[in-house]
């Protein structure tokens, strides 16, 4: 019997409406007891959490682990180590690998490699279309059988409304969420950043907010017409927030996520041609940031995602339009979002925890995101206070593409426990043996 005791922390577990000082005992990988003053037994692994927060392990519904095919950017070992350092116990990885994750064999490969070398739970997201080519459906049912939790053509949006219609209909029959990266490709073609004042000043081709909104609108109309669910990925615009809010009000089965960079940064971060600020969808304007924050505050936004998108330095250290898009988000998403959303009074702590654990776990149907007795023993322990400076050089990810180098962070992950095993702990010892 393997026991892990997380002792003395403030447990915030929105799924059970719990917020108070409790010990959490994980036995053989599952939550066994949440109670005051659980006595430690000899041999228990103990995580001291007094003065700290204890929450259900964070779940990232949208990341890129680059494995198979792009291991020079990231692989399942380094990616999950970075995720654990950022407080994540489960991550769902997008299918734009090489080969594309559009069949059961690649799903199996990712899961088996994750079991061997991963330190957090890895859930593959399969492709909507074979080869991400946008022409014919991938084997959604067979991928689900192999362990895929959703489908998405992330990064290569499904251009054909008819194919998206069929994907939504077919995937709904298997209970597979369809995650849509909304970007009307002819409106965004050639663009390197948000279209607006900053792109006009820099002489860079712009991607209008309308490119995102046009496809968000299409997905909402299809989901409404078909009576099936749809999940909108990384919402970045005021227009999409407004449309999703209105669709929810009339009963459309829509959920959505946003990423920290869409409420922490604007397109002004691109000034000076800083490719660390190049991401897709692009960083938008202050009005969009305000709308995204309002959407988080009023529940229009259901969850946060990192869109962790590692790229090799050589793919970022280029002329702006030629550089790859993407931000390495695992190691900053939780801490920076905590500071802005909880520290900044946008949402209460319990809702914040829900946005980063229970809500994405529900979307993906993975039975996590709570500290209910019997649930997997995934726990994140963090503390707040004493700001520290985030340093790119200290990142665990194989890639270091972040626009947040030098940012101050008040929240700090102390320990990440996956199925009762401590997958990460901060330098200061948070663990002992009773």
């Amino acid at each position: 019997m393997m026991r892990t005791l997380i002792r003395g922390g403030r447990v915030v577990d929105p799924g059970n409406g719990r917020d108070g000082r409790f010990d959490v005992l994980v036995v053989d990988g599952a939550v066994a007891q949440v109670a005051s003053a659980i006595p430690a037994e000899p041999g228990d692994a103990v995580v001291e959490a007094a003065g700290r927060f204890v929450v259900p392990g964070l779940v990232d519904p949208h990341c890129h682990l680059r494995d198979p095919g792009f291991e020079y950017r990231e692989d399942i070992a380094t990616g999950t180590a970075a995720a654990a350092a950022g407080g994540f116990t489960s991550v769902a990885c997008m299918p734009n690998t090489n080969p594309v994750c559009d069949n059961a064999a690649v799903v199996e490969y990712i899961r088996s490699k994750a079991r061997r070398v991963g330190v957090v739970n890895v859930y593959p997201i399969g492709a909507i279309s074979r080869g991400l080519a946008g022409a014919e459906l991938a084997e959604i049912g067979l991928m689900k059988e192999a362990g895929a939790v959703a489908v998405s053509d992330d990064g290569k949006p499904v251009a054909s409304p008819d194919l998206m219609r069929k994907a939504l209909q077919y995937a709904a029959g298997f209970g597979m969420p369809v995650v849509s990266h909304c970007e009307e490709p002819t409106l965004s073609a050639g663009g390197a950043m948000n279209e607006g004042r900053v792109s006009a000043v820099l002489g860079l081709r712009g991607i209008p907010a309308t490119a995102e909104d046009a496809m968000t609108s299409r997905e909402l109309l299809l989901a409404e017409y078909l009576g099936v669910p749809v999940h909108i990925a990384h919402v970045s615009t005021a227009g999409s927030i407004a449309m999703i809010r209105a669709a929810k009000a009339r009963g459309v089965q829509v959920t959505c996520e946003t990423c920290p960079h869409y409420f922490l940064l604007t397109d002004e971060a691109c000034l000076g041609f800083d490719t660390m600020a190049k991401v897709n969808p692009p960083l938008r304007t202050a009005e969009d940031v305000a709308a995204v924050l309002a959407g988080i505050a009023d529940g229009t936004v259901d969850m946060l995602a990192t869109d962790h998108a590692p790229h090799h330095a050589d793919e970022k250290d280029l002329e702006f339009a030629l550089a790859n898009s993407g931000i390495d988000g695992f190691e900053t998403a939780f801490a920076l979002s905590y500071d802005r959303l909880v520290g900044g009074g946008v949402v209460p702590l319990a809702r914040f925890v829900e946005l980063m654990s229970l809500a994405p776990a529900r979307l993906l149907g993975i039975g996590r995101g709570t500290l209910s007795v019997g649930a997997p023993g995934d726990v994140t322990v963090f503390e707040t206070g004493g700001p520290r400076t985030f340093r790119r050089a200290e990142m665990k990810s194989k890639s270091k593409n972040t626009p947040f180098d030098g940012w101050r962070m008040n929240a700090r992950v102390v320990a990440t426990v996956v199925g009762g095993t401590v997958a990460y702990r901060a330098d200061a010892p948070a663990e002992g043996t009773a």
Partner: protein
Amino acid sequence: MLRSKDLLGMQELAPDEIVLILDSAATMKRVLESGNKKTAHLQGRSVVTLFYENSTRTRLSFEMASKFMGAASANISSSGSSVQKGESLLDTVRTIDRMATDVLVMRHPQSGAPHGIAPRVRASVVNAGDGMNEHPTQALLDLFTMRDRLGRLEGLEVAIVGDVLHSRVARSDLWALSKLGAHVRLAGPPTMMPRGLEGTGARICRTVDEALEGADVVMGLRVQLERQKSGLFPSIAEYARFFSISADRLARAKPGALVMHPGPCNHGVEMPTLVYDSPQSVIDEQVTNGVAVRMAVLYLLNARRNA
């Protein structure tokens, strides 16, 4: 004295630096007009031009300027160099830098390309055009020409007409003219007007007539005729009908208003030959002034390197 080792764009230059360059160019123009064009300002110095796009005026005027001032000069194009072997811009530039290059004059199709490499080389980097972003020495020669002919820049009404969206010349002129108190009006096909320029001080005009009304300077911008294929305008004929600086439209400008064009010009599209060759046209003079301005830029950057 210039404040930066590099000349990246008019956005980066302060008004007094612009005036310093224009004043120095006036001296250089006298050198050009004298019997002996040779000076010793750049003796023992090296200037390399690295062009990833075609150029006649800009490249030749930098090379002439270097030679007039006694620099050792060389040029590289993307064709016939390691660029064709897939060498990255940074590696190419570092190679040039390590050959004891003092000034690297660079043209590149990507906005921001020189900004990325300037901090990483010892040479002074001069932007000779980066994508749609800036073409600072063109703006300097445009300002020089306006000041030379009209005696001032402050308060001038400058109409810039054509493909503003893709034009680094329009951007550099807008930033430079605004800094020195001139007013810029922009006009062209609505598909070629960048979204977001409204808040930058330029007046966006609905028609070419509106832009030209009472203008002191009328500048045409080159239209790449291939752009018609991407749907930016329906046909050359329609462009010429509505967006050309015709003699009729030019009559709306102030009497004697200057006609300018950065070249190369599509005659009959941006403006008819009649206007191009009219007494109001200073297009040929712009070319001469371009050499003087580039001499001034090389001289001032070298002075800063010596300091």
